[in-house]
């Protein structure tokens, strides 16, 4: 199943990419997507072990499920306000 991964700010700079489409076996979790991402995109190896994540624009956890067509965002430490 295809999953779209979005990278922002420092993570985007590290990976050199903003959008990565990953094919994954279903069902998957955020942690599984991260494992696959680290293999597929070398620049993401340096990402923290437990980064902030969002699935379909809602804060999620490493254990959260990821479904076909979901959008998973990796969020560097937030610095708004």
């Amino acid at each position: 199943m295809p999953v779209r991964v979005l990278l922002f700010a420092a993570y985007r700079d590290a990976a050199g990419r903003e959008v990565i489409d990953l094919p994954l076996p279903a069902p998957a979790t955020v942690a599984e997507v991260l494992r696959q991402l680290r293999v597929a995109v070398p620049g993401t190896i340096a990402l923290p072990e437990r980064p902030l994540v969002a699935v379909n624009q809602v804060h999620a956890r490493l254990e959260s499920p990821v479904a076909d067509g979901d959008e998973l965002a990796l969020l560097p430490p937030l610095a708004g306000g």
Partner: protein
Amino acid sequence: MNLLSCRPSPAADVGHLTDAPIALGPLLEEAASPDRGGVTTFLGLVRNHQDGRTVVRLEYSAYLPMAEAETARIVAEAAERWPARVVVRHRVGALAIGDVAVAVVAAAAHRAQAFEACRYVIEELKRRVPVWKKEFYADGTIEWVDPTARPARVERT
């Protein structure tokens, strides 16, 4: 500007995130109404220093759809907890020292509700809304700000 005028609030189609300068007046008008006698405002301005370094300018970027959705969720939570109307704007893009980076205006019947709702929204915004800050320093270096990497600061009362 008549804050207590009875004319309708401006159209609510303005997003919470904007690349245009933030003016306080329209936000006050949007939050105020004749039954809300207490209005509090928090403004976050671009500071010219950070951890002992001189900052010359900065850029905010955001995961825009989620930042809008998360800000709307926070405003809705505040409306559930307090009888207050809260208006929020956060800048994205290039900002200069002294620019308004974020504005939160809370209006309620009485001041306690307005203060509490305003504080809740700015604290939750900083904790939950996906916005990132790139600082440009006087020595020519550039960094993404990582608040979690900084030494803990003790709030003095």
